[in-house]
């Protein structure tokens, strides 16, 4: 390269470095890292406390068969870091969070039996604030007749129990034993993700679909720290283990909570949709893996509707959106290639095809400003506000004539007023 310019260097004073700094500066850096990590974790634990009292005795987390949802006649308490409430889980002798024991149905009473997963069970929400607990009184007022609601929902696989939908199908005799006049099935996107038919047991997706943290931890416990470390490096899983350890820290939970909670609706939707796998069910054309999953769920859905039909009980299904889905519906627009209503429409068609009824609460979310604030940002379950919203919409849709026995004696005045609890 030809250079024609010739210039003299500027005189720049270089600060002297000392030999001791070779030790001191890295030591200061390491000390800072340690102090930061410890203080962040302590501060997170102090500001976002988490309590579990008797949870191991309550949920069947150590049940090796994975068939038992909860232990009957048990009580435990839990506060998740994202909530300020210490929630009591009290299960009756049939293992249900129903607020009392199942008694014979009094004459003239219309009994609704709820089936579903953790959202229906009211995870991380006090029972008296769940829609299951709020429905009887409001429905009785609206319909002018005595309505009872018995909640048979099970917590979900992550608590160590069976998958809720499968459990409902396998133990449908228990659902019928509650003498339902109507079975109300609350479906969430997670139920579709968790769908696992017999064919699915041998499917290549089985490992991905059925995460079982117990096998990993039980084998890990028997090894020493260094043994685990060398084994994970040898297996190439060190990065994953490190990530999983990080994700268990309160600092990680609190940071994610703050970041997600601080996002505007638009930013939240954008950042959620960036994760292709999680957002698969929101796509207008989901990938083959999701299509297979939907087929599994359809099989389970067919089984449950068939069982209800054979028993001569009216089955009504409802789809409850998850956090990003609710945000998209409320916002009213979304990127091309996505549709927050698509999954619900498929489920609705399937329910109706199999002889069940469907009530549609998704459009009601259009009138709620920022409904994502009514879900725990990281955990994803509806909080007390979210449960109240679902309650209002269920009352509105159940009493509008879809179920003749529940038709409101006067037009429902539910309102789509934001904030009304």
């Amino acid at each position, binding site marked *: *390269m030809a250079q*024609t310019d010739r210039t003299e260097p*500027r005189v720049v004073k*270089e*600060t002297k470095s000392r030999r001791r700094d070779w030790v001191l*500066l890295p030591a*200061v850096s390491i000390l*800072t890292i340690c102090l930061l990590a410890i203080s962040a974790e302590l501060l997170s634990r102090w500001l976002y406390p988490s309590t579990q009292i008797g949870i191991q005795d309550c949920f069947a987390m150590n049940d090796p068969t994975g068939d038992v949802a909860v232990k009957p006649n048990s009580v435990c308490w839990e506060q998740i870091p994202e909530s300020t409430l210490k929630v009591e889980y009290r299960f009756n002798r049939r293992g249900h969070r129903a607020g009392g024991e199942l008694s014979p149905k009094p004459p003239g009473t219309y009994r609704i039996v709820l089936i579903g997963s953790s959202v229906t069970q009211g995870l991380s929400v006090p029972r008296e604030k769940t829609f299951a607990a709020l429905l009887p009184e409001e429905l009785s007022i609206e319909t002018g007749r005595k309505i009872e609601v018995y909640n048979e929902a099970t917590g979900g696989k992550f608590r160590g129990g069976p998958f809720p939908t499968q459990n409902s199908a396998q133990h449908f005799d228990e659902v019928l034993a509650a003498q339902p006049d109507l079975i109300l099935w609350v479906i969430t996107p997670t139920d579709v993700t968790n769908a696992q038919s017999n064919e699915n047991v041998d499917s290549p997706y089985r490992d991905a679909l059925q995460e079982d943290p117990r096998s990993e931890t039980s084998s890990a416990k028997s090894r020493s720290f260094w043994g685990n470390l060398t084994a994970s490096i040898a297996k190439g899983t060190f990065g994953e283990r490190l990530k999983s350890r990080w994700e268990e820290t309160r600092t990680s939970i609190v940071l994610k909570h703050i*970041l997600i909670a601080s996002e505007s609706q638009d930013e939240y939707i954008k950042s959620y949709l960036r994760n292709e796998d999680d957002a698969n069910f929101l796509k207008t054309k989901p990938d083959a893996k999701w299509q297979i999953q939907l087929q599994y769920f359809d099989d389970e859905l067919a089984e449950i509707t068939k069982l209800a039909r054979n028993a001569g009980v009216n089955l009504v299904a409802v789809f409850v959106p998850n956090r990003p889905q609710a945000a998209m519906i409320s916002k009213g627009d979304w990127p091309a290639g996505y549709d927050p209503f698509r999954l619900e429409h498929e489920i609705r068609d399937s329910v109706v095809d199999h002889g069940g009824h469907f009530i549609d609460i998704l459009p009601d979310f259009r009138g709620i400003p920022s409904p994502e604030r009514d879900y725990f940002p990281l955990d994803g379950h509806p909080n007390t506000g979210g449960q109240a919203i679902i309650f209002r919409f269920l009352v509105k849709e159940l009493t509008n004539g879809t179920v003749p026995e529940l038709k409101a004696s006067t037009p429902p005045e539910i309102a789509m007023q934001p904030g009304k609890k």
Partner: protein
Amino acid sequence: MDSASLQFVLFGLIAAALSNLSASRVWRSNVLLLATLTFVAMLARSALALIPLAAFLLFGYGAIALRQRGWSRGTAWSIPVVIFAYVWLKKYSFLPDQFLLHFPYFTLGLSYIFFRVLHLLIEAGENAGPEEQRHIGFVPYLLYTMNFTTLISGPIQRYDEFRRDQFAVLPLPLGRATIGLQLERLIRGFFKVNVLAMLLHMMQENGLEQLTQPVPVELKMLAAIQMTVAYPLFLYANFSGYIDIVIALARLMRIQLPENFDRPFSASSFLDFWNRWHITLSKWLKTYVYNPLLMVLMRRISSPSMEPFLGVICFFVTFFLIGVWHGRTSEYIVFGILQGGGVAINKIWQLSLARILGRKAYKDLAKNAIYIAFGRGMTFSWFAFTMFWFWANWKQIGTIFSAIAVAPWFVVWLVMWFGATAVLATWELLRTELLKIRTAEGSALTSRYALVVYATTMAMIALVVTVVLNQPAPGIVYKAF
């Protein structure tokens, strides 16, 4: 590769490491050229997309070469042509659509290239001294105009400064302490862009969202304050963070880039603010617009009583152009008027006070801590309000201003003024007191040990937020200009 991403930083560090393999200026220039070409190739979608930029650069080089060979009179047209070519390539919205190029082409950094080319063209004119008239080779011209560290968003360096460092026989020294300082600055910049700016952007978006919700007026006013305050802070973190990164990378390549920010929110007046914010841009325009315009006006209007007001006119024109330069749409014309109007009113205020109170009394007042504090608050709140025409389009501006009535907006502005006055005064006081804690080597808070603590803390947080939490930050705002 985004301009302040981890990939960009790693790319810059690799280029710096390669550059330092030899002290030879030829080697360093070759590395800079290779890095720049690689950088542009990574950003451009196709070779075709680079043709308009290449044509612009070639035209600029041809005109400069002619002017340096004494053809400055014959090539006087080249300056308006370069300005027009820039306006045309940037697709300013007042140009008819059928007149523009209708294929996607590369315009990243064009605004900054434009300033460098224009600077060389003007300096190569007939009034230039022997230094400026020295022939610039094509490769040095390319290195200066396209240098990857300053390509996207500046800072706007003068050619003589660039040449002094890049082509020096003995390059700038790069000892361990300097490397340490630059690494600390890199981390600081990365933290500002990827953590601070991201959080402030969230704040602003949340405020905007809240403002349009059906909530009580008190909440809307709070949202308006949140949105209005967050944006200038976001822009500062975003732009100054990027500048920190490129200055550090360039210094590691033994080039000293000019500073672009000097604690702008400490400015006690709007005039002072523009001496501290995007310094290289305002310096450029003062050199090539303000000074020549003032000279022309003074020659034409010789009345001494009018002299100070000529400065007001020149200030308005200069800062109006700064505003207009930022974008291609009509919103930026208003932004320019507000910037120009701000500095012009500020100048008139200074002149009037000096006239009413007398020079000495005015000087004493200007040194008064309370006067300075309120001036600082006023400067911040004015700048924050003018920013609506910077980040929002007319539809959004309409939504923002119709969200609450005039009286609540006035209250919002008052709260912002007094709030900014109190917060910034507290900050200045705290900073002054903290810097008084000294060791034998200087202030304890700026010692190398303190810098290591800051850098480690910022690196940890940035790592957690960007890598572990996978939370992407908004892109560099000035990249779009």
